[in-house]
């Protein structure tokens, strides 16, 4: 099988290599503290035992992969889902505001793109700003949005979702403008010869032609949405969510907790992007793309 030789084997080998490097790095990074501990306890373990110790600290500088995996497994499957410690619960908190923000951001982006494509003044006045705003670190306003909303009594999902909306709307708007403008001149001429109305040209030509662009930009947008939701959880000392877990971990030096929160965030990211990808692929296949 081609995909086996060309993909699975190389990827597994490199992942394995990364794990080996990780374990070795863990030894060296955790060694100083372990030596200190051992000196205080007046024990001198042999090398093998010492290495074992560096992979089993409670608050290691760099936790060994199996420690993270253990923690992740425990907090995902063994802890009750309603518990504060549960990664499922925390991921759900982040995921819900990500999804809310992503949905509204995508909708907003599509609406603005439709406006830009059909109203020349909007194209001329708004488009340069949308492009320019992609070059600025918008994420910096996250803490302000959260705090300002908290000041008027709105907390929880809405301010986080708002930041996600804001972050996901730009890529979708830009992608959709490109997509709605992507039809060939030939196809536009064809619609012209049919004396098709603007609405007909929109639904029968521009919308289908823009689908690949929409899904490509939605993949970017959903990842940005998640980052927005996580960062929005940082400044308020939010009670739950992946960002809150990270922050709590960094306060109490619970490195293993931090790493497993990171893993949870990555799992959510991969699931989100993959879902968008699968939906996009499904739509493409329905629209007759080459399998």
């Amino acid at each position, binding site marked *: 099988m081609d995909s086996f030789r060309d993909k699975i084997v190389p990827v597994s080998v490199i*992942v394995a290599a990364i794990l080996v490097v990780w374990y070795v790095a863990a030894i060296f990074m955790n060694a100083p503290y372990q030596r200190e501990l051992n000196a205080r306890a007046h024990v001198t373990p042999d090398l093998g035992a010492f290495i074992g110790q560096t992979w089993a600290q409670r608050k290691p500088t760099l936790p060994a992969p199996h420690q993270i995996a253990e923690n992740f497994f425990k907090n995902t499957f063994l802890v009750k889902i309603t518990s504060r410690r549960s990664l499922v619960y925390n991921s759900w908190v982040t995921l819900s505001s990500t999804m809310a923000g992503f949905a509204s951001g995508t909708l907003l982006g599509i609406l603005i793109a439709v406006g830009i494509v059909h109203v020349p003044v909007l194209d*001329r006045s708004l488009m340069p700003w949308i492009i320019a705003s992609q070059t*600025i670190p918008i994420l910096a306003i996250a803490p302000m949005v959260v705090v300002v909303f908290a*000041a008027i009594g709105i907390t929880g999902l809405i301010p986080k979702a708002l930041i996600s909306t804001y972050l996901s709307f730009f890529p979708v708007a830009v992608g959709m403008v490109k997509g709605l403008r992507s039809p060939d001149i030939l196809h536009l001429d064809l619609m012209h010869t049919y004396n098709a109305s603007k609405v007909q040209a929109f639904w029968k030509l521009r919308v289908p032609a823009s689908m690949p662009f929409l899904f490509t930009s939605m993949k970017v947008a959903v990842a940005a949405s998640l980052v927005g939701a996580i*960062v929005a959880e940082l400044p308020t000392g939010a009670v739950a969510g*992946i960002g809150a877990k990270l922050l709590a971990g960094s306060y109490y030096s619970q490195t293993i907790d*931090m790493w497993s929160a*990171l893993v949870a965030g990555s799992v959510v990211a991969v699931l989100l992007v993959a879902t968008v990808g699968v939906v996009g692929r499904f739509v493409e296949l329905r629209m007759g793309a080459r399998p």
Partner: protein
Amino acid sequence: MRHLAWQSVLALVLCLAGAAMLPLADAVSALPFTVGQTAAVELLLLASVFVSVSGINPLGGAIFLFLAVHIAAFTLVGGIAGNEGGARLSFFLLLAAAWLLAWRLNVLISGLKAGSRGARNFQRLIVPTLFGVWILILWEGITRGAGVPFVLLPPPTSIAVRFANSLPILGADLVQTVFKAVVAGYVIGCGAGFIVAILADRVPFLRKGMLPIGNVVSALPIIGIAPIMVMWFGFDWPSKAAVVVVMTFFPMLVNTVAGLAASGHMERDLMRTYASNYWQTLFKLRLPAAAPFIFNALKINSTLALIGAIVAEFFGTPIVGMGFRISTEVGRMNIDMVWAEIAVAAIAGSIFYGVVALVERAVTFWHPSVRGG
């Protein structure tokens, strides 16, 4: 085009309604609008409505509209300063009328046939600029007119005042975050990504393994490693630079590998017929062909790097830096300072991106996307 534009008609209705509901504002503390000012605003707006529908001399009309609408708008916005929260409905109606006329002005300018290249460029610039200026005018008018609490949304003028009064602090933050953390992290991250990409290109096995991993990692919320980096590298800028390194590494890797595969088969066969060796082919054909991809990564990374450095500062810094300033001033409810800092971030981001884009234009002048303007 001599039909009545809806913006002009609506503006006329708003003008008349506004006139019926004078005065513009209740005096809160300072001088409210004088009768003369109020009359001037009404007259300017009515004249603008007339000019905008008359269709006489498009260019002259546009210039008149520009002057009249903006004098009216600045009179409105200027008069309300000091009377925060005192605006009455007629104030907002007239402000809305002015805004609609400015919109109409933008439509007119877009419709002008620019003769020379310079005029066309000016036209391309003035339309979005007016749009941006009007966002500020409305922001100012609404926040001051309705007396929006300062902690929610300060008016742009007070942000500007705060900006001007805090230049030393903002400058120090800029140096700490951009010139130390971002630049160091960006250079190391992009450099490492580039070198690994070349390495991966030499060793196909490595490429096959790295590319899927790189693609997956690019979608992950890498920013989350910030607290870990702060633990490892301390509070000062190296920890932020480390976050930036990780964030910029993967986009560079993935794009460079894709770019190195971008040169055509025909060109590569040509190099083969010259018996050119790997490095000659790399430097004479494949790297130039990859340049658009590499610059794409450099541009994406310019934004990512700033985000990484600023967000990493939310997790702990010495008492300087843009992220530090934003998070502490938010805590103290000094929202105008936060906006000033965001303005700095926006300017820094645009300049950073602009510099990369300029270098790109110089290097990839042959690429269709550059030639096409």
